[in-house]
């Protein structure tokens, strides 16, 4: 059951989906298929996708400057798929139920990431020693009574879909603002109309129809002010060129801030659970939501942040958390499962300069 998400639920027609287990077995037997992308010399379909535009040398975040804002990492087929799902986005028993259930874990993971490092996006800006304290629920509580002394977080949610994560982030007392973007107008309309049902959201939550590439044009201050938490949940498996996409994302993360992602590993198990069981057999996730070929393994995603010296100076060590959906119980953290199925990956930006 898998994750379905805004962007994720997107992957419809494109589905070069593998329905025949034999095909999968064949694919899995191709050595390059599972080899780390950085060492691949003759890329398979999947690795080509990962590298496209970067086949020679995936450079650092600086490469984002080389892409024009007209190019987009978003696949138009994906957009139409998610538009079609919009109506049931907020139905607790609808197509996005698995996503709703996963949402609390996203906050736990962010909390976990932020408390893992004494360095925060506020350290840099304020030099206030109290900011070194890891956030806790007590701190969250104090915020409401002591707003002057506690820094609140700015969130950028990329591929926000119907706003499941964006709304929840905006509700946290520790949040100052959430900018949520998505290229699908249909789902954004759903997100906006749902946000209208909660009077607490409007002061903090802004939706914008945009891709990450066009965001600097639409909202130049998003680049200059940057964000404490940049999230792209269940998104990266729906974009055509993940590494290019991540290059773009980097410029929105405050030094000391965190980029937090979740996606699905491309394994036998994930094909069986997310494609075959969840979509075809159980129907928990709408058909066509996932394109198994676009799944990204944890070591591949981690590799992006560690592949060059430049990147290692720019990003901290990635943190991962594997999660497993147990029908009837919901999502559970299972250490080690990041190698197998759904996982979160968080990485802290260290460097202060966008172009290292």
């Amino acid at each position, binding site marked *: 059951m898998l994750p379905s998400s805004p962007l994720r639920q997107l992957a419809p027609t494109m589905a070069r989906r593998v329905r025949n287990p034999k095909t999968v077995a064949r694919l899995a037997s191709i050595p390059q298929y599972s080899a780390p992308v950085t060492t691949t010399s003759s890329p398979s379909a999947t690795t080509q996708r990962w590298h496209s535009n970067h086949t020679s040398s995936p450079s650092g975040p600086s490469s984002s400057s080389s892409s024009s804002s007209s190019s987009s990492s978003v696949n138009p087929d994906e957009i139409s798929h998610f538009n079609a799902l919009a109506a049931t986005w907020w139905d*607790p028993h609808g197509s996005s139920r698995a996503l709703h259930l996963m949402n609390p874990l996203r906050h736990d993971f962010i909390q976990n990431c932020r408390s893992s490092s004494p360095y925060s996006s506020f350290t840099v800006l304020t030099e206030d020693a109290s900011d070194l304290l890891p956030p806790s629920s*007590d701190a969250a*509580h104090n915020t409401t009574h002591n707003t002057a002394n506690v820094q609140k977080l700015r969130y950028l949610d990329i591929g926000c879909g119907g706003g499941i994560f964006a709304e929840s982030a905006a509700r*946290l007392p520790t949040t100052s603002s959430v900018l949520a973007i998505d290229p699908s107008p249909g789902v954004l309309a759903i997100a906006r109309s749902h946000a209208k049902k909660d009077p*607490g959201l409007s002061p903090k939550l802004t939706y914008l129809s945009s891709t990450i590439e066009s965001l600097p044009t639409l909202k130049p201050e998003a680049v200059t002010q940057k964000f404490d938490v940049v999230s792209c949940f269940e998104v990266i498996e729906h974009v055509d060129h993940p590494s290019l996409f991540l290059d773009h994302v980097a410029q929105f993360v405050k030094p000391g801030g965190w980029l937090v992602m979740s996606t699905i590993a491309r394994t036998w198990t994930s094909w069986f659970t997310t494609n075959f069981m969840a979509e075809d057999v159980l129907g928990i996730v709408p058909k066509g939501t996932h394109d198994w070929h676009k799944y990204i393994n944890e070591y591949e995603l981690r590799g992006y942040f560690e592949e060059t010296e430049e990147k290692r100076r720019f990003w901290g060590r990635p943190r991962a958390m594997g999660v497993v959906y147990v029908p009837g119980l919901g999502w559970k953290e299972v250490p080690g499962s990041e190698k197998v199925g759904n996982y979160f990956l968080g990485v802290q930006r260290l460097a202060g300069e966008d172009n290292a």
Partner: protein
Amino acid sequence: MEAVARRKAAAYVCRSCTRQFQRQLRRNYSNSAPRPDIYDVVCVGGGPAGLSLLTALRANPVTSHLRVALVEAQDLSKVKSWKLPPNKYSNRCSSLTPTSALFLDQIGAWEHLDQTRVQPYHEMQVWDGVTDARIEFDWAPGSAPVEGTTIAYMNENLNLTSGLLKRLEQLGGVSVFEGANVENITFGEEMEDLDLSQWPVVHISGGKQLTARLLVGADGANSPVRAFAGIDAKGWDYNRHGVVATLEMEGEGWGGEHTKIAYQRFLPTGPVAMLPMPGNVATLVWSTTPENASLLKSLSPKDFVAMVNAAFRLSTVDLAFMHTQGTDQDDEYSWRLQHTSFNPRAIPQTVVGVQEGTVASFPLKMRHADTYIGERVALVGDAAHTIHPLAGQGLNQGQGDVQSLVKTIEFAVTHGQDIGSIMSLESYVSERYTANHVLLGVVDKLHKLYSAGSGPLVPLRSLGLNAVNALGPLKSFFMKQAAGSGTKIF
């Protein structure tokens, strides 16, 4: 309770929006449409469940910023200042399990109860009125839970609500609407910038309207909130009444001041229970037929006392006969007692008097709501379930509901969930529904099992009771369940 300060613009979600509303309110002052008065939690019902819910929310640092309101039909200042002379006790008492007491302590309410009026008890004597099969719930050496040997605490309901109100006043921050009846519950309106069409609006007497992110029905068995949410409650009436009274005993009990004992005898008409209060006082809960109940209420104090003593001593045949007498039960009892043999130390000490004006009765029923939640609605306590009092679990179930609901709300707040959404309330139902259902079912079956005066069930149930009594570990298990300290089954 007006002294309880009303927190302004301090809501979890509504902190900034309240400010916004106030601005808009000023701006729209000329318009006739009033801007909604929005609360995070509106609790209808100021009984033990509703009050402990609000106390727990206010005492918890994670939820204390929620904007909360209480709507209660009674005048709460009378409840808060409730006081009786030391030798007088209210007839409405409940048994609080150690789990409930611990929860009340955690939310800072326990210390506000008048402790001189709270009576822990340490043993239970339960027997079958037809066969005399018996189970003695006394802790075998080493089997008592670590926290002590207390099975439960007997306490007047008013002592609890009064203590909760004092704690709530200390915490502050609750908008209290007392002496206010719920006249109607509707949905909010859809405006240009705000869609409240799925938010409950509570209309209270005086014209005030409260809009609720989460509307909690702690409003009893005939819950208007449950009716608003369209949630059905199924069950049946037992055709029994619970007769209660405050009794004066000949002494402090066979165990003395420090080992108090609760007694329950299963009669074919229903169980009769005598529960210890401080000193020479005990409280009676006698489940019986409506006819017997009205007879008992009509008796002189002397005859009523004789009937209670008879209920724990005489054969069920003798007792049935005495219910046919209009009066003079006292003489009848004295005569019949001479011809009945029993072990006086295995039954309660003799009742010597009944506190004036405390004999009362109420109908017994079993109800269970189909669910405890709806969109922006949650039910707790009697609004969700009504149980036969024979196990003394009704109030404790309500406290268990509250504890679980507060945990659910706390999780929702820390994870940015809308505390009124079905999605965030689901865990409350899944945690409580089955547990309550099992307990309702067990108690219901117990009632039915012991209602049989003869037939094949009678020897079987006695066999069961004797067997349980003989098996130490099983008995210890039941005691821990009763004390709420064992593995969570019920």
